[in-house]
Structures are given as structure tokens and as C-alpha cells.
């Protein structure tokens, strides 16, 4: 330590090193920060881990006041029953059916809304046309309409078109809700791509279509991925709209499906937890993996405006 010359006492030296530094954080502060972050991380993760714990508990000890993460006599019985049904109870498993229902509806809606949003975001970003600003503000205003508010007219509309209880009804109900915000995000991102690139390509004789598909889309992969992820996640775990549109058990998406575990005569928390873990793990891996992109995309959109 360079400051030790004036003060040779090792304890003072250590204290000074520990509590005070001209540049950067002192070890004391670093420890405090890490402690705070560890506590916050535990609060963030522990409730999620509890779901895993409950899913591993054997059926006779589901209700305990035990706080350990890996329970005693851990078993995979709940997973087996959720995935493949239980012949003893003469019950078949709807798990894959729910997953398929969700997946087919949500992937189609995300793709539709992505295509719609990407195309018009490009127009909003690159062309100056009468009604552009008005259109952007208008899109933002639609975000003020609560989703729950449009549910009733949508429900009546779908009922008139005889689309209640169909996958198409749910697709229609989901597909546009995320479009306005996606347009905003993508427009913000497209704005950051230099126009020179396109102009050079246009001079070389490329068409607008080529410019869009060969230059803009590849360059905005992160933003597109985020927008897709957002609209996918939005629909993937949506409960309230699906509750209204779908009424038959074989049409249920997984949020409705796992809710039936909680509504049965004896609440099956073990199976509910097992199903939750099976559904949440892939989504969470995807989400956490893309979190870096997520941060860049979100802030680019909002900072650039």
C-alpha cells in the first residue's frame, strides 16, 4: 500500500485498506454490496425453488413445515403422473395436450404479430409520410386501453362468429394485442441502423424488399428476438382471456390446465408443482439466456424513442 509510509502500524494499515480507498470500492463496501445482492438473490430465487421442492415431495408428506430444498424421500412420482397419467387412478394425462394447445396458439399469434409489426415499424422508421406522427401516438394510445376492457366486446364478437371454444378464437383474441408496443420497440431499433447502408444498396440496384430482408432484418435480429420473446411470453402464460374464450377441457391451454389441479376436490399441489417445473424450466432457460439481448433491446427502444 502506498499510503503505509506515514503510518507503519499494521492494524491501522489494514483498517485503512479495508474501509477507505481513493479509487474504486473498498473491500468493506464490496462485502456489503455482495451481501445485499446475495440476500436479494435469495429472495428472488427461493420461492421459485420451493416449487421444485414441493414437486419432489412424496404424496404423503406434501403438507409439511419443512424448509429444506431437497425434501426427505424425494421422488419423481409427481412428474410421472403429470406426464403419463396414472393407471391406478384410471386417469389420463392432459399435459401434452395443454402444451400443444398453448404452443400452437401462441406460436402462430407471435409470428403473425411479428410480421405485421416488423413491416409497419420499417415504414414508420424510414418513410416520412402524412399521418406518421399521428399514427405513432395513436398506437401508444391503444396501450391505454386495458386488455381486460376489450375482453367483453371481443368475447361477444367471437360468440357471434361462433368462435368461442376454438383455437382460432384465441388466436384472434391474442394476435393484435402486442402489435402496437412491438411496432414501437422495432421502430426504435430500426432508427439506430444507419440509413446509408440502405441507400448504398438501393443505388446498387437492390429493391426495397431486398433491402428489408437482406439488410434490415439481419441487422435487427436482437430486437426481433426480443419482440418475439415478449409476444410469445405474453401469450404463453396468459390466463384470463383464455379462461373466457376456452371452456372445454380438451381445448385448455396449460395455464387453464394447471389451474384445474388447484380446483380438484383434493388440491394436487404435488402435481401442480411438477407440471409447473416442466413448463417453466424451458421458458426460463430461454428467457435468462436471452436476457442480455433483452436489456440492450429494451433500452435502445426507449432511449431513442
Amino acid at each position, binding site marked *: 500500500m502506498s499510503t503505509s509510509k506515514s503510518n507503519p502500524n499494521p492494524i491501522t494499515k489494514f483498517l485503512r485498506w479495508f474501509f477507505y480507498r481513493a479509487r474504486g470500492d473498498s473491500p468493506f463496501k464490496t462485502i456489503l454490496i455482495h451481501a445485499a*445482492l446475495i440476500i436479494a438473490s435469495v429472495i428472488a430465487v427461493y420461492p421459485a425453488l420451493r416449487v421444485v421442492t414441493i414437486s419432489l415431495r412424496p404424496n404423503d408428506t406434501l403438507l409439511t413445515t419443512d424448509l429444506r430444498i431437497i425434501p426427505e424421500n424425494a421422488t419423481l412420482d409427481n412428474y410421472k403422473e403429470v406426464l403419463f397419467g396414472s393407471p391406478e387412478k384410471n386417469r389420463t394425462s392432459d399435459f401434452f395436450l395443454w402444451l400443444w394447445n398453448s404452443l400452437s396458439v401462441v406460436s402462430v399469434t407471435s409470428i403473425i404479430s411479428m410480421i405485421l409489426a416488423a413491416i409497419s415499424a420499417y415504414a414508420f422508421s424510414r418513410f416520412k409520410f402524412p399521418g406518421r406522427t399521428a399514427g*405513432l*401516438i395513436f398506437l401508444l394510445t391503444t396501450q391505454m386501453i386495458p386488455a381486460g376492457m376489450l375482453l*367483453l366486446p371481443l368475447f361477444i364478437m367471437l360468440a357471434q362468429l361462433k368462435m368461442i371454444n376454438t383455437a*382460432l378464437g384465441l388466436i384472434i383474441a391474442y394476435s393484435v394485442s402486442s402489435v402496437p408496443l412491438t411496432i414501437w420497440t422495432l421502430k426504435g431499433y430500426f432508427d439506430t441502423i444507419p440509413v446509408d447502408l440502405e441507400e448504398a444498396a438501393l443505388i446498387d440496384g437492390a429493391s426495397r424488399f431486398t433491402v428489408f430482408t437482406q439488410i434490415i432484418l439481419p441487422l435487427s435480429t436482437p430486437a426481433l428476438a426480443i419482440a418475439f420473446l415478449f409476444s410469445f411470453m405474453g401469450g404463453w402464460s396468459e390466463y384470463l382471456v383464455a379462461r373466457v374464450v376456452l371452456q372445454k377441457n380438451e381445448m385448455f391451454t396449460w395455464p387453464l390446465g394447471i389451474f384445474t389441479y388447484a380446483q380438484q376436490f383434493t388440491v394436487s399441489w404435488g402435481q401442480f408443482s411438477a407440471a409447473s417445473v416442466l413448463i417453466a424450466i424451458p421458458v426460463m432457460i430461454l428467457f435468462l439466456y436471452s436476457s442480455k439481448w433483452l436489456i440492450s433491446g*429494451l433500452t435502445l427502444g426507449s432511449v431513442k424513442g
Partner: protein
Amino acid sequence: MENQSAIRRLLPYIYWLVGIFAIYFLLNYLISPFSSGISLNLKTVVARVKEIGTFLVGIGLGLGLIEAYFYQIFFRQPSNPTTRIIMRSLQVVLGALVLLTLFAFFEITDLYRLGDTFLATVIHIPLTLFGTIQKALLGAGVAKASAGLWSGLVLSLIIIIIYGVIHLISIPRHSRLGLAYLLVLPALIGVLFLIIYPFLFEIKLAFSNASLGTQATKNAQYGLIYGWNNLVTLFTGKVAKDARFFEVLGRTVLWTVINVTFHVGGGMALALLLHRPMKLQGFYRTLLIVPWAIPTTIAAMALRNEFDSRYGLFNILLTDLNHWLTSVSQGTVNIIGIGNLFSWLSAHIGPVSWKQDPFWAFVSILISNIWLGIPFMSVIILGGLQSISKEYYEAAEIDGASKWQQFVSITLPLLRPVLTPAIVLGVVWTFNKFDIIYLITQGGPQEKTDILVSSMYKAAFQFYRYGFTAMFALVIFVILFLFTLFYLRITNGLKSVSE
């Protein structure tokens, strides 16, 4: 040579196909011993793929035809006066047909009812046309199973032929703005049909007495008096079962303010902690956004479980804390101040009934929503922090500014472009966010944890008061709209947005 490159070009697709089939057979092999217990089967999958495929083809075809129509308006012009008449009249006819279809759609969805008037016949022309083609096809025995699909295809073929005619008799024209409008059009159509139209429909519904008794809109009466009645019921009567409007409004404001305060405060704290060069930063960040990454339904249901009075996490912890406090108070009973303090604490801190007590039920949904919402805010704020240049802080440090002064005069002002939209959207979302409430307490006990939107949901889908719900929804919308205008006015937040 040519042949070989074709194969090489197709190779990726072949790999994909082989991969998909391999996975399919592997899954089949793994699952087949259990397949008797699984209700999903190939038939369901194929039926769904067909259904969605037909739908997508229909949507694509429809949008394509509309785009082509506008393309010709923007980019083609007639070559001479004779063709001008033919071309414009064809376009007018097509446009009229589309408009009529739109009006017919409005009638089918019960925006208005025309009955058997002349107007109705006119509006139904496209539908009659469609029906005729369908009948003709059925009569010819061409398509039995999906006559609707086939007649749609025939109809679009006719329209495409008309487009072809127009194309032949016209010459290209330059249009500067045409492309922009063509690009915006599909999204605009989507938004108009699925956001604006339902919104207008809701306004209409608000002035009706539609309910389960009137079979939704079938026998509903419309008129200003019904709207007035709905409004009076809303403000003076019961909004769901027992709850009253202003009580629920107050709770909603409380819910929003507490949530957003904690989201922004907690998010800011975490972002500031994370925003520094240190080890394990990525690790912490990953752990901290876990609540956001969990699907909401699962998180809500899991938390509901944790609020169980005996076996839930919170009461287990509170019971342990209570035992500890009791033992300490017994150990320190002779030390006057501390002994009394701990016995007082042990008498007051202990397990609570999260489900029965309205106050604690409200606290439980607040805890849940705060836990779920902080990561999003911290990610947004962290992004904002990273976009602030370090030079500002270095300059401030040279001038001798303290950390707090730096935070107030550098960080906060420069975070504003990020914070303003985040707070506005946060407030609007929280105000409307009731899936947590619905899944954890279902508004109970005695609707003491309902907020406006969840009461509205109940009014619509538990009590089937459709007209009333529509008016309720409009009032909520007005409240939110006024808030946003007010907030943007005082923070000048839209200044950067409009450019």
C-alpha cells in the same frame, strides 16, 4: 455441376427434415409405452394444423388482395381516357364490395341490426355472392367437405383476374408515399379490427341493458337512458357483489401507488448495486430476474400456495420468528427494557391469516406483485444507467461532488428518458394488472382485495352484466387516459417521443 449445387442448396432442409423425423420417432419410441395415459394424439395435432393452416391461408389471401388493390391505386395509372373509365369503375366496384363486406361483418357481430330492409339487402350483396358460389360448387359436386374454403379461393381467383385486367390496361406510375402506406396497412387493419372496433362496440354496449337475460346482444335494448342507468348503478350501486365503486377505486389507487413505488425503488436499488465493475455481476443479474422469467400463472399459483396459513412459507417463517422472540423474551425477562420489548414483539409478531383477514390478503397480493415486478424495472433502469457516460461522474468527482449529489444531479435527470415511459407504462399496467389478484385471492375475502379491473371482470363473466361492464370499462379508460395526459403534461415526456 448444376445438379450438385442444387443438392447442396437443399441439404440444410434435408437435415432439418431428417432431424425432425428423428426427434419424432425418438419421442414416439420413448413415449409409446406410456401412450395409453396421454390424451394428446396424432389426430388432434393434424386437425389443429389443418385448422390453423386454413386460417392463415385465408388471412394471407385476404391481406394480399387488399394490398394488391391499394398497390394498383398507388402505382398504376390508366394509359388513355377509355381505359381510365374501365379501370376506375372496376376499382370502384371492388372497393364497394369490400366496404359492403365490412358493413356485413359489423352486422354479423351485432354492431347494428338492419332486419329485412332494402339497406340490408344491399349490404348483404357480397355474402349473397359468396353463398351463390358456394351453392354452385356444392351443386357441381366439386367440394363437399370445405365448400367455404373452396368458394373463397374461387372468389379470390375472380378478383385476381380483375386485377390482371386492370394491370394490362394501365401503365406504371411513380409514387413516393405509396410504399409507406402499403407497409403500414396490414398492421393498421389488424389494429382497427381487433382494438378499435371492439372499443367502439364497447361504447355502444355501454348504452344498453345487455346481460345474460337479454342473451348478450340478441335482445338488448339500446338508448341513452340505459347508459345513464349503468352510470348511476356504477357510482351508487354495487359494482360486483357487495363492493362499491369508490371503495374499490381507492384500493386500486393504493395498489398502483404502492406497487409502482416499490418497483421503481427496488429496481433502482438493485440496478445501482449491479451497475459497477465487479465479479459475479452476470450471475447476480441472472438470479435477480428469475421472478420475471417465471410464467406469471405459475408464479401466482405458487405464491398462493405459500400464503397457506399453516404450510406456506410466510407463516412458517413468521412462526419461527415468533418462537425465537418468545425464547429471547424468556431469557431476558430480568432485564427490564429488553425483556418487555421482546415479550411485546413476540405478542405482536407471528403467523397471520393471509386468506381470511382482508388487510393481510391485500398485503399478500402486494408482496406477490412487488416480487414479480421489481426485476423488469431494474433491468430497464440498469439499461438506462449503462447509457450514461462515465465522464459526467468523473467531472463531478473532480469538482468534489458527493455520491448523493451525483445521484441527484446526474443520474436522475439522465435517467428521465428511460424512467418516464417506464413509470407511465408501469402505472397503466399495474392499474390493469389483476391476474395476480384473480389467481391468488380471487378478490376475496368478501371482495376486499378487488381492484377496478378485477371487479369489472367479475361483473362481466360471473354476473353477466354486459352493458354495465361496458360502462365500467369506459370509466376506467377515462381515468387512465386523464392520468396519462396529466403525467405527460407535467413531465413533458412526449417531447422526445414525437420526433
